[in-house]
């Protein structure tokens, strides 16, 4: 727990290779409590891999990652415990198709013995209400639209009461008319002061909710700053090229 006390997430010299292919080439990122950081960059630049190193879904090749005071490279750290502090939302939702919406949300609290089943159910219903899906409690994932699925996935992550939320292109698999409803849920979380790392290609959204934007390319952080700085006055050629294509 060597990272600076104010950092919720502290990444130092993070490297990640798949076989001989080095995908992350030494990242240094500090994220403060309550901060909303958006990560942008071209496809294949390592955004997802970076995010997956923050809850160790991918192994860390070198460097240190300290999250919520837990050093993830320390082999004695209980990853299952750490992950309860970090919610993750995936591009393709990854809802459990054999369970109802309510069961999806209740699974982790019940299995992790967070209070009684009745408590878990009450919490799940509250979360469903919060994402506007109270009427879908008994539906199966297959009966939901993409936007509804993603809102259930967010509720499922929130059910273990995390301090940090990671979003990996949460809206890129959605039809355009459903993007708004999911972004609204993320916006609300930001307003409540949740620490969040959001990988996104929604530049407008990044500009609106981010405290800071990180631009990644080729496994490195090329540039970072406030949305106004990064979008208004990008310093690097690569950032400018990228933004000129997506904006």
């Amino acid at each position, binding site marked *: 727990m060597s990272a600076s006390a104010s950092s919720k997430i502290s990444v130092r010299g993070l490297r990640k290779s798949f076989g001989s292919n080095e995908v992350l080439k030494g990242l240094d990122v500090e994220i403060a409590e309550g901060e909303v950081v958006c990560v942008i960059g071209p496809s294949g630049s390592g955004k997802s891999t970076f995010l997956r190193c923050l*809850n160790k*879904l991918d192994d860390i090749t070198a460097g240190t990652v300290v999250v919520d005071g837990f050093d993830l490279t320390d082999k004695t750290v209980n990853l*299952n*415990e*750490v*992950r*309860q502090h*970090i*919610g*993750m939302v*995936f591009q*393709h939702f*990854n*809802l*459990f*198709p*054999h369970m109802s919406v309510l069961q999806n949300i209740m*699974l*982790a609290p019940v*299995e*992790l013995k967070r209070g009684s089943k009745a408590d878990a159910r009450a919490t799940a219903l509250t979360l469903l209400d919060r994402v506007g899906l109270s009427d879908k409690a008994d539906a199966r994932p297959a009966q939901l639209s993409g936007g509804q699925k993603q809102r259930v*996935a967010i509720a*499922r*992550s929130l059910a*273990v009461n995390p301090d940090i939320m990671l979003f990996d292109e949460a809206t890129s698999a959605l039809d355009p008319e459903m993007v708004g409803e999911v972004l609204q849920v993320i916006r609300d979380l930001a307003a409540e002061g949740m620490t969040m790392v959001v990988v996104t290609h929604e530049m407008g959204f990044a500009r609106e909710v981010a405290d800071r934007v990180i631009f990644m390319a080729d496994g490195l952080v090329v540039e970072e700053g406030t949305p106004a700085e990064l979008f208004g006055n990008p310093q690097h050629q690569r950032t400018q090229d990228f933004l000129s294509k997506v904006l």
Partner: protein
Amino acid sequence: MALAGGFVGVTAAAASSPSTEVSGETYIIGTDTTFAPFEYREDGELTGIDMDLVRDIAASQGFTVEIQSLGFDAALQALQSNQVDGVIAGMSITDERELIFDFSDPYFDSGVQMAVAEANTEITAYADLAGETVVAKRGSEGETFANSIKDEYGFTVKALADSATMYDDVKAGNSVAVFDDYPVLAYGINQNNGLKSVTEKEQGSSYGFAVNKGQNPELLAAFNAGLAELEASGAYQDILDTYLDAPAASSDTSFFGLLSDSAPALMKGLGLTLLATALSILIALVLGVLFGFFTVSESRILRGIATTYVSIFRGTPLLVQAFFFYFGLPQLTGQPIDVLAAGVLTLSLNAGAYMTEIVRGGIQSVDAGQTEAGRSLGLGYVTTMRRVVLPQAVKIMTPSFINQFVMTLKDTSLLAVIGFAELTYQGQQIYAANFRTGETLLIVAAIYFIVINLLTMLSNKLDKRFNK
């Protein structure tokens, strides 16, 4: 290898008569499946000259016999591997066999005879066989004799495994004549097997009871003593007359007569088929789940173990595996193995390999994102498997499980070759005695068909019910 071994050897020296040595002992005697009139089944019971002889001798000498009807080759292999204590199977005493077995006094003088189809008027002597094919039983006197004259008369000899098949071969016209031991031939002709004998019997060899070389001398002595007693009392001649002079073909010859006569034996066989299937599939399920998890584990060693297991059992024929577990393993370990145990061992290890692949395929077909979602919620590997991956994998695997279940049920029929008395074996026994091969096999096939389809329907119903 007497079952109640112990201090037999110690008492042997003191014993004055061989009968005291064997009295109270139980000996396992191997025999052929299909060598009427020496051994065959009637209403499911083993009967015939050999059976009556060995049982009467056992009774007169005060020991007990447990007969195992294995088939001729299998019985000899079982004797060599000490799976059985003795073999009585209408076996000729030959110099070759005397090298590896000890024989009793001869109990029957046989001789080879030639027979042709009833309607055949062209073949009446060996000289008429020029350019033709004849059939004989593999490894038998008939084969030896046919081979000894084939060059002189210019015919070809084909070897088959049992009498009923040989007779069918001649009736079907694939061979013009059969060379078989005269008592067997005489019995078959009396049972209306569609053949007739056209030559005199050749001077032949004598049949003897055999034990493994140097093993069970007291059993051999008791057999000789008992045989002498039966010959002296006239009981021996009575037995021969029963089978050779007056073989009564009294049973119902209609299809439904065959059906009702064979039903008890076939149902017993079906019971054993289902028992072997159920035991094998249960063990295979455990093996499949265990090794299936090995194949998806992160440990290279566990993956290696599972891969080796699967490739061995998928890469060798089931029949070879069955022979290995029943005949080979006892020779290697010195421990005899029960035929049901050997059969279940074979089928469960074999099906387990396929189950392993089914389990691996099922687990791997569940999207990796499911595991990631579970793990990212803080659930452990086991919980994620149990609550997230397996419920989805089982649903995918169920049709393959049902398929494997049916395959294993059908594979039990292969165990007939090691003498496991399941459905196919019972069918073979029946047509070996009544020579109604086609009808009997139709009945056997129909039983398999009905049972398999009923079980498949039931399984699919359960699948629908639980895997919605």
